[in-house]
């Protein structure tokens, strides 16, 4: 099974997309449905929602 994460920096901006075989429990690692690189640079606003920075 594969797990996909968006890693956030200190400003809640996505700095990395990860495709891995194990679960990671961390406040800065947001579980996502696929390795979607279009999330890079977006801001995580909570509850699975990412928004483009203004």
């Amino acid at each position, binding site marked *: 099974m594969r797990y996909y994460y968006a890693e956030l920096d200190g400003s809640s901006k996505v*700095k*990395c997309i990860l495709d*891995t*075989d194990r679960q990671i429990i961390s406040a800065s690692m947001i579980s996502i449905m696929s390795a979607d*690189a279009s999330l890079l640079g977006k801001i995580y606003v909570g509850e699975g929602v990412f928004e483009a920075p203004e």
Partner: protein
Amino acid sequence: MSIDTEFFGGQPPRWVSGATYPFGFIALSTISPHSYERIVAGAGTTDPSADGTNWRRLGAGSIKSIQRGVISFSGSSATATVSSVNTANSKLTPLGFTTNTGSGALQGNDATKIVLTNATTITATKVGAINTIDVSWELEEKW
């Protein structure tokens, strides 16, 4: 190898936690798909695949895990978190880098280096600190 397998053939027995093994005994790991030879007589509770002090793997290690990712950064360095790996058995491969949408043209000082800093961290660095760079990588860990 046990007395039974020495006489009658077949695979080595599964390693059993707490059992005492003589030097040279061969057992199958309960975690990895490999066989291991006891190099120090004695007992233990750590699977041979994670006990390099008392066991050695027979043959080459197969792939344990593959992780992939993309790091996006505009400064001179950034880190990414990965699932924990044994750094001694892991290979990090860069898959290339591009400028992120909306940033300037790729420059010579945007050439990016990536390093497996520790068991859970990949660090990307470049000289330029203007353009946003997306660097892709693959991390392969073997048993």
